[in-house]
Protein backbone atom coordinates (compact mmCIF):
# COMPACT_ATOMS: atom_id res chain seq x y z
CA UNK A 1 0.00 0.00 0.00
CA UNK A 2 1.44 3.33 -1.05
CA UNK A 3 -1.20 5.40 0.67
CA UNK A 4 1.16 6.68 3.35
CA UNK A 5 2.26 9.77 1.43
CA UNK A 6 0.38 12.10 3.73
CA UNK A 7 1.07 15.83 3.79
CA UNK A 8 3.21 15.55 0.70
CA UNK A 9 4.21 19.11 -0.20
CA UNK A 10 3.75 18.33 -3.89
CA UNK A 11 0.11 17.47 -3.24
CA UNK A 12 -1.81 20.60 -2.25
CA UNK A 13 -5.23 20.20 -0.60
CA UNK A 14 -6.96 21.46 -3.72
CA UNK A 15 -5.40 21.09 -7.15
CA UNK A 16 -7.48 23.59 -9.11
CA UNK A 17 -6.38 22.35 -12.51
CA UNK A 18 -7.58 18.82 -11.64
CA UNK A 19 -10.86 20.29 -10.45
CA UNK A 20 -11.42 22.40 -13.55
CA UNK A 21 -10.79 19.42 -15.81
CA UNK A 22 -13.09 17.15 -13.78
CA UNK A 23 -16.17 19.34 -13.46
CA UNK A 24 -18.46 16.86 -15.31
CA UNK A 25 -17.40 13.96 -13.04
CA UNK A 26 -17.95 16.03 -9.91
CA UNK A 27 -21.35 17.22 -11.12
CA UNK A 28 -22.40 13.67 -12.02
CA UNK A 29 -21.45 12.46 -8.52
CA UNK A 30 -23.25 15.42 -6.96
CA UNK A 31 -26.35 14.70 -9.03
CA UNK A 32 -26.33 11.03 -8.03
CA UNK A 33 -25.96 12.09 -4.40
CA UNK A 34 -28.96 14.43 -4.61
CA UNK A 35 -31.14 11.86 -6.40
CA UNK A 36 -30.31 9.11 -3.89
CA UNK A 37 -31.09 11.49 -1.00
CA UNK A 38 -34.39 12.75 -2.43
CA UNK A 39 -35.64 9.20 -3.11
CA UNK A 40 -34.61 8.13 0.41
CA UNK A 41 -36.39 11.02 2.13
CA UNK A 42 -39.55 10.92 -0.01
CA UNK A 43 -39.67 7.12 0.28
CA UNK A 44 -39.30 7.44 4.05
CA UNK A 45 -42.18 9.92 4.20
CA UNK A 46 -44.45 7.72 2.05
CA UNK A 47 -44.05 4.93 4.61
CA UNK A 48 -43.79 6.99 7.80
CA UNK A 49 -46.86 9.22 7.32
CA UNK A 50 -49.56 6.51 7.15
CA UNK A 51 -47.67 4.34 9.62
CA UNK A 52 -47.36 7.29 12.00
CA UNK A 53 -51.08 8.03 11.80
CA UNK A 54 -51.83 4.38 12.57
CA UNK A 55 -49.26 4.30 15.37
CA UNK A 56 -50.68 7.48 16.88
CA UNK A 57 -54.03 5.74 17.33
CA UNK A 58 -53.13 2.11 17.99
CA UNK A 59 -50.65 1.32 20.75
CA UNK A 60 -49.73 -2.14 19.36
CA UNK A 61 -48.82 -0.55 16.00
CA UNK A 62 -46.83 2.12 17.81
CA UNK A 63 -44.80 -0.34 19.86
CA UNK A 64 -44.17 -2.81 17.04
CA UNK A 65 -43.28 -0.24 14.38
CA UNK A 66 -40.98 1.80 16.64
CA UNK A 67 -39.37 -1.44 17.85
CA UNK A 68 -38.83 -2.93 14.40
CA UNK A 69 -37.51 0.25 12.77
CA UNK A 70 -35.46 0.97 15.91
CA UNK A 71 -33.59 -2.30 15.39
CA UNK A 72 -33.17 -1.53 11.69
CA UNK A 73 -31.83 1.96 12.52
CA UNK A 74 -29.27 0.54 14.96
CA UNK A 75 -27.67 -1.68 12.32
CA UNK A 76 -24.67 0.09 10.76
CA UNK A 77 -25.15 0.98 7.10
CA UNK A 78 -22.09 -0.95 5.94
CA UNK A 79 -23.49 -4.09 7.59
CA UNK A 80 -26.96 -3.47 6.19
CA UNK A 81 -25.61 -3.10 2.64
CA UNK A 82 -23.68 -6.33 3.16
CA UNK A 83 -26.77 -8.14 4.47
CA UNK A 84 -28.82 -7.02 1.45
CA UNK A 85 -26.28 -7.53 -1.35
CA UNK A 86 -26.64 -11.33 -1.57
CA UNK A 87 -30.36 -10.76 -2.25
CA UNK A 88 -30.67 -7.43 -4.06
CA UNK A 89 -27.19 -7.21 -5.61
CA UNK A 90 -24.81 -4.31 -6.16
CA UNK A 91 -27.60 -1.90 -7.08
CA UNK A 92 -29.22 1.36 -6.09
CA UNK A 93 -32.13 -0.67 -4.74
CA UNK A 94 -29.85 -2.03 -2.02
CA UNK A 95 -28.77 1.47 -1.04
CA UNK A 96 -32.33 2.80 -1.03
CA UNK A 97 -33.75 -0.02 1.10
CA UNK A 98 -31.24 0.83 3.82
CA UNK A 99 -31.57 4.62 3.50
CA UNK A 100 -35.38 4.59 3.38
CA UNK A 101 -35.52 2.26 6.38
CA UNK A 102 -33.35 4.62 8.43
CA UNK A 103 -35.48 7.61 7.48
CA UNK A 104 -38.71 5.81 8.40
CA UNK A 105 -37.58 5.65 12.04
CA UNK A 106 -36.62 9.34 12.22
CA UNK A 107 -39.82 10.48 10.48
CA UNK A 108 -42.09 8.02 12.28
CA UNK A 109 -40.98 9.34 15.66
CA UNK A 110 -41.66 12.91 14.62
CA UNK A 111 -45.04 12.16 13.03
CA UNK A 112 -46.14 10.44 16.24
CA UNK A 113 -44.84 13.25 18.47
CA UNK A 114 -46.46 15.86 16.24
CA UNK A 115 -49.85 14.15 16.33
CA UNK A 116 -49.60 13.41 20.06
CA UNK A 117 -48.99 17.06 20.81
CA UNK A 118 -52.15 18.34 19.12
CA UNK A 119 -54.14 19.66 22.13
CA UNK A 120 -57.28 17.73 23.06
CA UNK A 121 -59.26 21.01 23.10
CA UNK A 122 -58.46 21.54 19.45
CA UNK A 123 -59.73 18.08 18.60
CA UNK A 124 -62.92 18.68 20.60
CA UNK A 125 -63.45 22.00 18.85
CA UNK A 126 -62.95 20.35 15.45
CA UNK A 127 -65.45 17.62 16.35
CA UNK A 128 -67.90 20.26 17.54
CA UNK A 129 -67.57 22.10 14.25
CA UNK A 130 -68.65 18.92 12.50
CA UNK A 131 -65.35 17.68 11.05
CA UNK A 132 -65.51 14.06 9.93
CA UNK A 133 -62.55 11.92 11.11
CA UNK A 134 -60.77 12.02 7.73
CA UNK A 135 -61.25 15.78 7.32
CA UNK A 136 -60.15 16.35 10.90
CA UNK A 137 -56.96 14.39 10.27
CA UNK A 138 -56.13 16.14 7.00
CA UNK A 139 -57.27 19.66 7.82
CA UNK A 140 -56.59 19.95 11.56
CA UNK A 141 -54.23 17.32 12.96
CA UNK A 142 -51.63 17.00 10.21
CA UNK A 143 -51.25 20.77 9.70
CA UNK A 144 -50.67 21.18 13.44
CA UNK A 145 -48.17 18.31 13.38
CA UNK A 146 -46.36 19.83 10.41
CA UNK A 147 -43.63 21.65 12.39
CA UNK A 148 -42.57 18.38 14.05
CA UNK A 149 -42.77 16.51 10.75
CA UNK A 150 -40.61 19.08 8.94
CA UNK A 151 -38.10 18.95 11.80
CA UNK A 152 -37.91 15.19 11.15
CA UNK A 153 -37.45 15.76 7.42
CA UNK A 154 -34.50 18.04 8.18
CA UNK A 155 -32.78 15.47 10.37
CA UNK A 156 -33.51 12.69 7.87
CA UNK A 157 -32.20 14.70 4.92
CA UNK A 158 -28.96 15.76 6.59
CA UNK A 159 -28.31 12.23 7.92
CA UNK A 160 -28.98 10.67 4.53
CA UNK A 161 -26.56 13.03 2.77
CA UNK A 162 -23.83 11.84 5.15
CA UNK A 163 -24.63 8.13 4.91
CA UNK A 164 -24.85 8.06 1.09
CA UNK A 165 -21.06 8.51 1.00
CA UNK A 166 -20.69 4.99 2.44
CA UNK A 167 -22.66 3.46 -0.44
CA UNK A 168 -19.49 3.46 -2.56
CA UNK A 169 -19.05 -0.14 -1.32
CA UNK A 170 -22.00 -1.02 -3.52
CA UNK A 171 -20.92 1.31 -6.31
CA UNK A 172 -23.47 4.10 -5.77
CA UNK A 173 -21.69 6.45 -3.42
CA UNK A 174 -22.38 9.80 -5.09
CA UNK A 175 -19.79 12.16 -3.60
CA UNK A 176 -18.42 9.17 -1.67
CA UNK A 177 -16.91 8.02 -4.98
CA UNK A 178 -14.71 11.13 -4.94
CA UNK A 179 -13.65 10.45 -1.34
CA UNK A 180 -12.84 6.86 -2.34
CA UNK A 181 -10.75 8.10 -5.26
CA UNK A 182 -8.89 10.43 -2.91
CA UNK A 183 -8.11 7.45 -0.68
CA UNK A 184 -7.11 5.00 -3.41
CA UNK A 185 -4.90 7.44 -5.31
CA UNK A 186 -3.65 9.09 -2.11
CA UNK A 187 -4.63 12.34 -3.75
CA UNK A 188 -6.11 15.13 -1.62
CA UNK A 189 -8.19 17.03 -4.16
CA UNK A 190 -11.07 14.56 -4.76
CA UNK A 191 -11.21 13.84 -1.02
CA UNK A 192 -11.50 17.53 -0.14
CA UNK A 193 -13.93 18.30 -2.98
CA UNK A 194 -16.15 15.32 -2.12
CA UNK A 195 -16.21 16.03 1.63
CA UNK A 196 -16.71 19.78 1.33
CA UNK A 197 -19.51 19.42 -1.23
CA UNK A 198 -21.15 16.85 1.02
CA UNK A 199 -21.14 19.20 4.03
CA UNK A 200 -22.25 22.14 1.86
CA UNK A 201 -25.11 20.10 0.40
CA UNK A 202 -26.24 19.07 3.90
CA UNK A 203 -26.16 22.61 5.24
CA UNK A 204 -27.92 23.98 2.15
CA UNK A 205 -30.66 21.36 2.49
CA UNK A 206 -31.02 22.12 6.20
CA UNK A 207 -31.31 25.88 5.67
CA UNK A 208 -33.75 25.49 2.75
CA UNK A 209 -35.99 23.19 4.78
CA UNK A 210 -35.89 25.59 7.74
CA UNK A 211 -36.98 28.39 5.40
CA UNK A 212 -39.69 26.23 3.86
CA UNK A 213 -40.97 25.48 7.34
CA UNK A 214 -41.18 29.14 8.23
CA UNK A 215 -43.18 29.75 5.06
CA UNK A 216 -45.43 26.71 5.54
CA UNK A 217 -46.22 27.12 9.23
CA UNK A 218 -45.82 30.81 10.08
CA UNK A 219 -47.75 30.31 13.33
CA UNK A 220 -45.05 28.06 14.82
CA UNK A 221 -42.15 30.28 15.71
CA UNK A 222 -39.84 28.34 18.00
CA UNK A 223 -37.85 25.08 17.89
Amino acid at each position, binding site marked *: *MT*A*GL*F*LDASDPWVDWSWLSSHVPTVLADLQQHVVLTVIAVVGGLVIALPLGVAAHRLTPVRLSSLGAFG*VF*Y*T*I*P*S*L*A*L*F*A*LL*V*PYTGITEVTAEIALIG*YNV*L*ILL*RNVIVGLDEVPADVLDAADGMGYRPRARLLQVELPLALPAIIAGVR*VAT*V*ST*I*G*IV*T*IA*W*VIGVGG*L*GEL*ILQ*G*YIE*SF*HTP*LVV*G*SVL*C*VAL*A*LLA*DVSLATARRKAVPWARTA
Partner: protein
Amino acid sequence: MDFLGRVLAWLTDPAHWSGTDGIPTRLGEHLHLSVEAVAIGAAIALPIGIALGHYGRLGNLAISVSNLGRALPSYGILVTAFQVFGLGDAPIILALTALAIPPMVTNSYVALREVDPDIREAARGMGYRELPLVLRIEVPLAVPLIMAGIRTSAVQVVATATLAAAIAGGGLGRYIIDGFAQQDYVKLFAGAVLVGALALLTDGSLSLLERVLMPRGIRMRKAPVTRQATAFKTA
Protein backbone atom coordinates in the same frame (compact mmCIF):
# COMPACT_ATOMS: atom_id res chain seq x y z
CA MET B 1 -25.89 -26.24 1.26
CA ASP B 2 -27.99 -23.11 1.05
CA PHE B 3 -26.55 -19.63 1.52
CA LEU B 4 -27.51 -19.10 5.16
CA GLY B 5 -26.23 -22.58 5.98
CA ARG B 6 -22.84 -21.66 4.56
CA VAL B 7 -22.86 -18.41 6.57
CA LEU B 8 -23.58 -20.41 9.71
CA ALA B 9 -20.80 -22.83 8.82
CA TRP B 10 -18.41 -19.89 8.35
CA LEU B 11 -19.36 -18.43 11.73
CA THR B 12 -18.89 -21.75 13.53
CA ASP B 13 -15.69 -22.80 11.73
CA PRO B 14 -12.97 -23.04 14.43
CA ALA B 15 -10.46 -21.64 11.88
CA HIS B 16 -12.31 -18.33 12.05
CA TRP B 17 -12.02 -18.17 15.82
CA SER B 18 -8.22 -17.90 16.08
CA GLY B 19 -5.29 -16.02 14.56
CA THR B 20 -4.83 -12.40 13.52
CA ASP B 21 -7.89 -12.45 11.25
CA GLY B 22 -9.97 -14.44 13.74
CA ILE B 23 -13.23 -13.20 15.19
CA PRO B 24 -11.86 -12.66 18.75
CA THR B 25 -8.97 -10.53 17.42
CA ARG B 26 -11.22 -8.47 15.14
CA LEU B 27 -13.80 -8.02 17.91
CA GLY B 28 -11.03 -6.92 20.28
CA GLU B 29 -9.79 -4.34 17.75
CA HIS B 30 -13.32 -3.09 17.19
CA LEU B 31 -14.00 -2.71 20.91
CA HIS B 32 -10.61 -1.09 21.54
CA LEU B 33 -11.25 1.60 18.89
CA SER B 34 -14.83 2.20 20.04
CA VAL B 35 -14.29 2.26 23.81
CA GLU B 36 -11.37 4.65 23.54
CA ALA B 37 -13.23 7.02 21.22
CA VAL B 38 -16.35 7.07 23.40
CA ALA B 39 -14.33 7.54 26.61
CA ILE B 40 -12.27 10.43 25.22
CA GLY B 41 -15.36 11.91 23.60
CA ALA B 42 -17.33 11.74 26.87
CA ALA B 43 -14.46 13.32 28.82
CA ILE B 44 -14.59 16.28 26.43
CA ALA B 45 -18.30 16.51 25.63
CA LEU B 46 -20.04 15.92 28.96
CA PRO B 47 -18.37 18.74 30.96
CA ILE B 48 -19.09 21.15 28.08
CA GLY B 49 -22.72 20.09 27.68
CA ILE B 50 -23.35 20.05 31.43
CA ALA B 51 -21.73 23.47 31.96
CA LEU B 52 -23.66 25.05 29.06
CA GLY B 53 -26.88 23.49 30.32
CA HIS B 54 -26.28 24.59 33.90
CA TYR B 55 -25.68 28.22 32.98
CA GLY B 56 -28.19 28.12 30.10
CA ARG B 57 -25.69 29.75 27.80
CA LEU B 58 -24.88 29.18 24.13
CA GLY B 59 -27.92 26.96 23.68
CA ASN B 60 -27.94 27.44 19.92
CA LEU B 61 -24.35 26.29 19.73
CA ALA B 62 -25.04 23.22 21.89
CA ILE B 63 -27.96 22.26 19.63
CA SER B 64 -26.38 23.09 16.29
CA VAL B 65 -23.24 21.10 17.04
CA SER B 66 -25.39 18.00 16.47
CA ASN B 67 -26.68 19.39 13.17
CA LEU B 68 -23.13 20.00 12.07
CA GLY B 69 -22.01 16.56 13.28
CA ARG B 70 -24.79 14.97 11.27
CA ALA B 71 -23.67 16.85 8.17
CA LEU B 72 -20.08 15.57 8.38
CA PRO B 73 -19.54 12.53 6.14
CA SER B 74 -17.97 9.98 8.51
CA TYR B 75 -16.14 8.26 5.67
CA GLY B 76 -14.62 11.57 4.53
CA ILE B 77 -13.49 12.35 8.10
CA LEU B 78 -11.80 8.94 8.39
CA VAL B 79 -9.98 9.28 5.06
CA THR B 80 -8.90 12.83 5.96
CA ALA B 81 -7.52 11.64 9.32
CA PHE B 82 -5.71 8.85 7.47
CA GLN B 83 -4.14 11.22 4.92
CA VAL B 84 -3.07 13.73 7.57
CA PHE B 85 -1.81 11.36 10.27
CA GLY B 86 -1.16 8.13 8.38
CA LEU B 87 -1.75 4.51 9.26
CA GLY B 88 -2.58 3.25 12.73
CA ASP B 89 -5.17 3.34 15.47
CA ALA B 90 -4.60 6.93 16.60
CA PRO B 91 -5.99 8.65 13.46
CA ILE B 92 -9.01 6.34 13.50
CA ILE B 93 -9.70 7.02 17.19
CA LEU B 94 -9.31 10.75 16.57
CA ALA B 95 -11.90 10.66 13.78
CA LEU B 96 -14.30 8.51 15.81
CA THR B 97 -13.94 10.83 18.80
CA ALA B 98 -14.86 13.83 16.66
CA LEU B 99 -18.05 12.03 15.62
CA ALA B 100 -18.80 10.91 19.20
CA ILE B 101 -18.79 14.40 20.71
CA PRO B 102 -21.83 16.19 19.13
CA PRO B 103 -24.70 14.00 20.40
CA MET B 104 -23.21 13.95 23.91
CA VAL B 105 -22.90 17.76 24.03
CA THR B 106 -26.43 18.32 22.72
CA ASN B 107 -28.14 15.74 24.91
CA SER B 108 -26.37 16.68 28.13
CA TYR B 109 -27.19 20.35 27.44
CA VAL B 110 -30.88 19.53 26.88
CA ALA B 111 -30.87 17.20 29.90
CA LEU B 112 -29.64 19.95 32.24
CA ARG B 113 -32.04 22.51 30.74
CA GLU B 114 -34.96 20.22 31.48
CA VAL B 115 -34.29 20.09 35.19
CA ASP B 116 -37.24 21.80 36.89
CA PRO B 117 -36.15 25.39 37.76
CA ASP B 118 -38.11 25.14 41.02
CA ILE B 119 -35.88 22.27 42.12
CA ARG B 120 -32.81 24.35 41.29
CA GLU B 121 -34.20 27.27 43.31
CA ALA B 122 -35.06 25.03 46.24
CA ALA B 123 -31.52 23.64 46.28
CA ARG B 124 -30.09 27.16 46.20
CA GLY B 125 -32.38 28.09 49.06
CA MET B 126 -31.07 25.12 51.02
CA GLY B 127 -27.58 26.56 50.63
CA TYR B 128 -26.18 24.49 47.76
CA ARG B 129 -23.26 26.10 45.96
CA GLU B 130 -22.85 25.79 42.18
CA LEU B 131 -20.69 22.66 41.99
CA PRO B 132 -22.60 20.57 44.56
CA LEU B 133 -25.83 21.79 42.92
CA VAL B 134 -24.65 20.47 39.57
CA LEU B 135 -23.20 17.21 40.83
CA ARG B 136 -25.76 16.24 43.47
CA ILE B 137 -29.00 17.69 42.17
CA GLU B 138 -28.93 18.49 38.47
CA VAL B 139 -26.85 15.64 37.04
CA PRO B 140 -28.72 12.86 38.87
CA LEU B 141 -32.02 14.29 37.61
CA ALA B 142 -30.57 14.59 34.11
CA VAL B 143 -29.11 11.05 34.04
CA PRO B 144 -31.72 9.51 31.73
CA LEU B 145 -31.12 11.94 28.87
CA ILE B 146 -27.36 12.20 29.45
CA MET B 147 -27.13 8.41 29.27
CA ALA B 148 -29.33 8.37 26.18
CA GLY B 149 -26.82 10.73 24.56
CA ILE B 150 -23.90 8.48 25.52
CA ARG B 151 -25.79 5.50 24.12
CA THR B 152 -26.48 7.28 20.83
CA SER B 153 -22.81 8.18 20.54
CA ALA B 154 -21.59 4.71 21.43
CA VAL B 155 -23.84 3.00 18.89
CA GLN B 156 -22.66 5.43 16.19
CA VAL B 157 -19.01 4.97 17.10
CA VAL B 158 -19.38 1.18 16.92
CA ALA B 159 -21.05 1.62 13.52
CA THR B 160 -18.45 4.04 12.22
CA ALA B 161 -15.58 1.89 13.51
CA THR B 162 -16.71 -0.61 10.87
CA LEU B 163 -15.38 1.88 8.31
CA ALA B 164 -11.90 1.71 9.87
CA ALA B 165 -11.39 -1.35 7.67
CA ALA B 166 -11.90 0.89 4.64
CA ILE B 167 -8.74 2.81 5.54
CA ALA B 168 -6.59 -0.26 6.18
CA GLY B 169 -7.60 -0.54 9.84
CA GLY B 170 -8.83 -3.57 11.79
CA GLY B 171 -12.11 -4.37 13.48
CA LEU B 172 -15.07 -6.46 12.36
CA GLY B 173 -15.52 -4.26 9.28
CA ARG B 174 -12.51 -6.13 7.86
CA TYR B 175 -14.76 -9.09 6.93
CA ILE B 176 -17.21 -6.81 5.12
CA ILE B 177 -14.61 -4.81 3.21
CA ASP B 178 -12.61 -7.96 2.35
CA GLY B 179 -15.82 -9.79 1.50
CA PHE B 180 -16.73 -7.09 -1.00
CA ALA B 181 -13.20 -7.01 -2.43
CA GLN B 182 -13.03 -10.82 -2.83
CA GLN B 183 -16.71 -11.09 -3.81
CA ASP B 184 -16.98 -13.62 -1.01
CA TYR B 185 -20.63 -13.19 -0.09
CA VAL B 186 -20.48 -15.72 2.74
CA LYS B 187 -17.71 -13.85 4.54
CA LEU B 188 -19.45 -10.56 3.74
CA PHE B 189 -22.74 -11.70 5.21
CA ALA B 190 -21.12 -13.30 8.26
CA GLY B 191 -19.20 -10.07 8.96
CA ALA B 192 -22.41 -8.07 8.63
CA VAL B 193 -24.15 -10.36 11.11
CA LEU B 194 -21.31 -9.85 13.60
CA VAL B 195 -21.31 -6.06 13.16
CA GLY B 196 -25.10 -5.85 13.43
CA ALA B 197 -25.09 -8.01 16.56
CA LEU B 198 -22.38 -5.88 18.15
CA ALA B 199 -24.34 -2.67 17.46
CA LEU B 200 -27.54 -4.13 18.90
CA LEU B 201 -25.69 -5.49 21.94
CA THR B 202 -24.09 -2.08 22.55
CA ASP B 203 -27.49 -0.43 22.36
CA GLY B 204 -29.10 -3.05 24.61
CA SER B 205 -26.43 -3.11 27.30
CA LEU B 206 -26.22 0.67 27.53
CA SER B 207 -29.99 0.99 27.84
CA LEU B 208 -29.78 -1.53 30.67
CA LEU B 209 -27.06 0.58 32.31
CA GLU B 210 -29.28 3.63 31.79
CA ARG B 211 -32.00 1.97 33.83
CA VAL B 212 -29.58 0.92 36.58
CA LEU B 213 -28.09 4.42 36.90
CA MET B 214 -31.45 6.16 36.98
CA PRO B 215 -32.06 7.54 40.48
CA ARG B 216 -34.77 5.63 42.29
CA GLY B 217 -36.75 8.83 42.79
CA ILE B 218 -37.20 9.30 39.06
CA ARG B 219 -38.09 5.66 38.53
CA MET B 220 -40.74 5.88 41.26
CA ARG B 221 -42.28 9.00 39.83
CA LYS B 222 -43.58 6.86 36.96
CA ALA B 223 -43.33 9.83 34.66
CA PRO B 224 -44.28 9.17 31.05
CA VAL B 225 -41.41 7.75 29.05
CA THR B 226 -38.48 10.14 29.35
CA ARG B 227 -37.51 12.24 26.37
CA GLN B 228 -35.60 10.51 23.65
CA ALA B 229 -32.11 11.45 22.56
CA THR B 230 -31.73 13.42 19.34
CA ALA B 231 -31.60 11.06 16.37
CA PHE B 232 -28.01 10.88 15.21
CA LYS B 233 -26.63 8.55 12.59
CA THR B 234 -23.27 8.82 10.92
CA ALA B 235 -22.67 5.38 9.48
